[in-house]
């Protein structure tokens, strides 16, 4: 921490206070927001924090003049938050920031136009980030981390403030996205439901009016939720939207969208090109895709095993495992085509023992009964058209379109 003289400290603090009150007087949201970004490590806030730690009694300064004291409830805890942040006391920093933000919201409510939305966005972001750091500090001390949860409650309140008819309502989606990040981090994704319902059904909101960056983020998270719930058409729609409108230069975000979109596309029979996987380093899917192209059940199993941890962590393991039926379809189709090339008249009848043989070759030891069961499932789910002649142990395929394509729809459940 740099040495600061008392005089210099006083100057820096007064300077900040003037900038704050001017920003509010002139409704200058862009200046105001810079004054609130506690975790940003901006040079001006760092130098202010040093000054505060030297001066120690900034509250007295604040109370001296009306133009500062009217914002005392915001400024006093904000200063405390900055000081504590600088000293690495993250729990205290968060607590003070929350107090300051509560006071900020009260003022914000009274400001009629949406001039302070940018500042509000900073508040929303800082609340989350400071809470995360506070929780890390709590965890490292062996205490229960509960600040992030508290930040979630605070943001729900902020959401309520924005959910009105006025121009401030376009800020609601940003706050929603901060909430998503919190809920996903805490693993309490069921809490997303109520904000989603508000955004999607409340008449005051028109989705198209929200800024594109928030719409993209929103569709990414709601798309992920659809993946968890195995609503593949909805997941496809949302994640594709996010992909289409995402900043082309945000490679990390594009990669994340694709990480979830690829399993969804595979489930509806659409394959990404290898170049896409390579560009965004999603090569863990390469063998899964190769297995689908070939009808190679062994390769699918290998691929799932090799990247099991990764797939489990992201929650796509079950989605990929279910691709097995499509791979069976492809394998049987190949057997059919091979038979057709040898003897077109008999091709539509496939002996079960032939399939058993192929599966054995792919290191899948199944008896005739198990294979019969799988064939029945394929027929039931409309991946194969035909019937199973049980006595003769033959699959009799329909002469027309025996292996219907998914056509962008998931396998019948």
């Amino acid at each position, binding site marked *: 921490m740099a040495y600061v003289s008392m005089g210099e400290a006083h100057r820096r603090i007064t300077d900040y206070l003037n900038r704050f009150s001017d920003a509010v007087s002139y409704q200058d949201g862009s200046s105001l927001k810079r004054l609130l970004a506690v975790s940003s490590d901006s040079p001006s806030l760092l130098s202010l924090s040093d000054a505060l730690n030297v001066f120690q009694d900034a509250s007295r300064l604040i109370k001296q003049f009306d133009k500062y004291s009217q914002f005392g409830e915001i400024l006093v805890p904000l200063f405390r938050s900055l000081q504590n942040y600088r000293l690495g006391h993250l729990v205290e920093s968060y607590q003070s920031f929350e107090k300051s933000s509560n006071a900020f919201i009260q003022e914000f409510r009274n400001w009629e136009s949406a001039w302070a939305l940018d500042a509000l966005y900073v508040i929303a972001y800082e609340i989350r980030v400071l809470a995360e750091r506070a929780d890390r500090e709590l965890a490292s001390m062996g205490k229960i981390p509960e600040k992030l949860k508290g930040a979630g409650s605070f943001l729900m309140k902020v959401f309520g403030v924005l959910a009105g008819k006025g121009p401030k309502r376009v800020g609601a989606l940003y706050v929603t996205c901060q909430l998503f990040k919190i809920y996903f981090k805490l693993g309490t994704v069921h809490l997303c439901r109520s904000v989603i319902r508000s955004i999607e059904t409340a008449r005051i909101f028109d989705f198209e009016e929200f800024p594109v*960056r928030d719409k993209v*983020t929103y569709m990414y998270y709601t798309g992920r939720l659809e993946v968890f719930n195995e609503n593949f058409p909805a997941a496809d729609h949302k994640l594709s939207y996010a992909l289409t409108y995402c900043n*082309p230069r*945000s490679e990390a975000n594009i990669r994340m969208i694709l990480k979830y979109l690829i399993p969804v596309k595979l489930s509806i029979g659409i394959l990404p*090109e290898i170049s896409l996987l390579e560009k965004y380093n999603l090569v863990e899917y390469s063998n899964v895709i190769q297995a689908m192209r070939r009808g190679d059940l062994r390769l699918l199993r290998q691929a799932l095993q090799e990247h099991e941890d990764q797939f489990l962590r992201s929650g796509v393991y079950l989605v990929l495992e279910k691709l097995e039926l499509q791979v069976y379809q492809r394998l049987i189709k190949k057997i059919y085509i091979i038979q057709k090339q040898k003897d077109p008249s008999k091709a539509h009848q496939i002996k079960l023992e032939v399939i058993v043989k192929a599966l054995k070759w792919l290191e899948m030891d199944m008896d005739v009964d198990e294979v019969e069961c799988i064939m029945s499932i394929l027929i039931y789910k409309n991946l194969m058209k035909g019937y199973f002649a049980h006595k003769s142990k033959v699959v009799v395929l329909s002469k027309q379109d025996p292996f219907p394509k998914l056509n*962008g729809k998931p396998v019948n459940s």
Partner: protein
Amino acid sequence: MATEPKAATEEAKIDLFEDDDEFEEFEINQEWEDKEEGKEATQQWEDDWDDDDVNDDFSLQLRRELENNTMEKK
């Protein structure tokens, strides 16, 4: 492995709260153009890959395997 058990449990607690795939924040008021490169990612999908071609290695091996019906290699 036994040297720092305390650190390991601390890390384990911290690991509790993670989302590997947290979306990065976009800049506030950032506008971007739908550049051509951006469109690229949305266009690299195939829906007509499920063809009748059985000339690839896998299919040839499959064919050989199926034709092996009288030869029992013991």
